[in-house]
């Protein structure tokens, strides 16, 4: 029997963890506190005997089915994409470096694209001016209707929910 008042349980427990302290000394001589500590010890023994149940037998299979259906993570797709891009670029470079004739032809083609491209812009502009003079607003209206009509149709066909539905 101890003369002092019983400590708060938190205090008692801190003393138990620390292995010393007034609360622990009190508990050694106090029936009530010793009984509480003993109950905790017993309960710990019982708790250690509890085991995790087994998952359902088809658990792993279900997980793997869902994994197979899941979209490939974006990062992995990007890695693969850049891998392919880099690989093809390296291969192309190798082919070019090995055959000077191919290099000549590629250079020529590239130069032609540049020259044609320069001529392309003024021609496109003059064509637009001609179309504008001839058809003007009617042409724009017709083109817009066609464009938006097609887009709307595509969206319907693809079956994607529209924003308002989602």
């Amino acid at each position, binding site marked *: 029997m101890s003369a002092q008042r019983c400590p708060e349980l938190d205090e008692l427990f801190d003393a138990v963890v620390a292995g010393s302290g007034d609360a622990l000394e009190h508990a050694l001589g106090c029936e009530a506190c010793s009984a509480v500590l003993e109950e905790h010890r017993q309960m710990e023994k019982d*708790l250690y005997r509890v085991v995790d149940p087994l998952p359902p037998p088809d658990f792993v299979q279900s997980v793997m089915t869902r994994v197979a259906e899941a979209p490939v993570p974006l990062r*992995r797709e990007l890695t693969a994409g850049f891998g392919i891009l880099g690989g093809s670029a390296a291969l192309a470079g190798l082919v070019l470096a090995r055959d000077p004739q191919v290099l000549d032809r590629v250079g020529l083609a590239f130069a032609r694209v540049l020259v044609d491209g320069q001529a392309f812009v003024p021609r496109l502009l003059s064509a637009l001016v001609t179309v504008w003079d001839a058809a003007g607003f009617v042409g724009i209206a017709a083109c817009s209707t066609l464009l938006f009509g097609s887009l709307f149709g595509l969206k319907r066909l693809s079956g994607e929910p529209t924003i308002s539905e989602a």
Partner: protein
Amino acid sequence: MMMAVDDAPALPWRDEVAAARKGNRHAFEALVRGVQRPVYGLCLRLLANDAEAAEVAQETFLRAYQALDRFDEARPFELWVLAIARNLCLDLLRRRTRARTEDLEPMKELLASQAPSQEDAAVAREERLSLEQAMATLGAEDREVLALYYVQRRTTKEIAAVMGVAPGTIMARLFRAREKLRRRMQQPEGESR
């Protein structure tokens, strides 16, 4: 959440994680097999419902698969997955408490699902049932810390990593959970604290 691993030389999950990251499903399957029991066990302990536990545990592995690139290999794979599982469970519990308050009914399912134990003493079994019944009436955090420490026998550091709290708080949490458990077991049903 940070955690240091002192016993780092062996990282048995590293090769499988690397293979799984490259899209090797067999490697991921091996990872799932390795940790399915503690993951499902924690889910069941937290949710106290077979079907929900299986569903959330599956969802856990799916999320892990999709986030595998973000996994830090220096951390134990198992703890990472357990942390995902506990977050999903707590989300579900939060949604559930919004719907209804307390129910002891799923306990039947929990008890029916227990793996048979090696010990045959009927007395020990009775004792364990009442212990688990009492455990199921505790709050999620108490159940979680008890399950991780006693059932899964994890260190306080590991538990801290899963729960995202300071390791120094675990022993006190354990004590508080045990104390609540002790009181529940002393009292006839209904009363608490």
